[in-house]
């Protein structure tokens, strides 16, 4: 799939766009940096998670508060776009010495009341619990964003969103291979076709190594 001609064409177009119009430090940016960069007014557009809006709309942190509009990512040719649902979680290591204390902490931290406090007092928008999301005070705050476009877009997005992330131990390793390929294309060390073909072979090797492919 990686070096399918359509993938190669799209990747080249996307990397060209990043090189010509993206942030100068694109290759070193994390998602958090991108969020802060947009909030600092350093970009005209960003495509990422809906919960970033809590930062964009925070007048204490953002230069663009009250100036952002929200919309779904447009469809590509023949495509049906959907958002990948992410999960926020607190876990406990099996090596934890104080398991009961850790479990009590997790129960407290993920309780509706704590998450409501975190949302209303410390801007945990948009919250992961339905009871917090539908709280009238929470809805009131989020309802003002983008002149109302935020909540409409967010609700529309949830109609097709699904969990796309694969919780496999090799997920990070495979992602790194893909990211290295994008860097090679970005810095013109390889064409999109060459870099993606190489990445595809490396990924196949890992899949064979961990028994996911023969």
């Amino acid at each position, binding site marked *: 799939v990686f070096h399918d001609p359509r993938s190669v064409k799209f990747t080249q177009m996307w990397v060209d766009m990043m090189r010509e119009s993206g942030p100068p430090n694109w290759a070193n940016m994390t998602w958090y940096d991108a969020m802060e960069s947009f909030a600092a007014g350093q970009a005209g557009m960003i495509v990422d998670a809906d919960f970033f809006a*809590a930062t964009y709309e925070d007048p204490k942190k953002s230069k663009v508060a009250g100036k952002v509009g929200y919309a779904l990512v447009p469809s590509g040719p023949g495509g049906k776009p959907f958002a990948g649902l992410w999960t926020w979680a607190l876990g406990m290591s099996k090596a934890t010495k*104080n398991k009961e*204390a850790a479990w*009590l902490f997790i129960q407290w931290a993920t309780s509706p009341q704590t998450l409501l406090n*975190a949302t209303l007092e410390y801007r945990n928008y948009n919250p992961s619990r339905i009871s917090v999301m539908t709280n009238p005070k929470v809805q009131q705050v989020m309802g003002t964003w983008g002149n109302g476009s935020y909540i409409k877009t967010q609700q529309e997005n949830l109609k097709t969103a699904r969990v796309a992330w694969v919780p496999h131990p090799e997920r990070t390793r495979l992602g790194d291979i893909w990211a290295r390929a994008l860097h090679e294309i970005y810095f013109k060390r390889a064409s999109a076709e060459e870099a993606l073909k190489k990445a595809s072979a490396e990924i196949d090797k890992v899949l064979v190594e961990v028994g996911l492919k023969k």
Partner: protein
Amino acid sequence: MATQSGRTLGRWLVGLLGLVLWVGDAPPVARAQDDALLAYFRQAKINWRQAEGQKLTIGLNKHPFTESLLPLIPCSTTRAPSSSPRCGST
């Protein structure tokens, strides 16, 4: 409480002297507010003090979710003053 920075930063030592708010010296009005806010946790019928005296080391990613949780962590201990940070919203 100690912090360290990095790509995935966050390491906090939390003294768990019981997972309830400390309201011992709160003035009457603040205590009444705290009682209302704590009612939610009391109804769970959990002994929030069962881990009293134990310590937890908590690692958190740098993320808006964890940044919203961090200031509330003192609310999970008996060391927390009742008014700052705000431990409850109604």
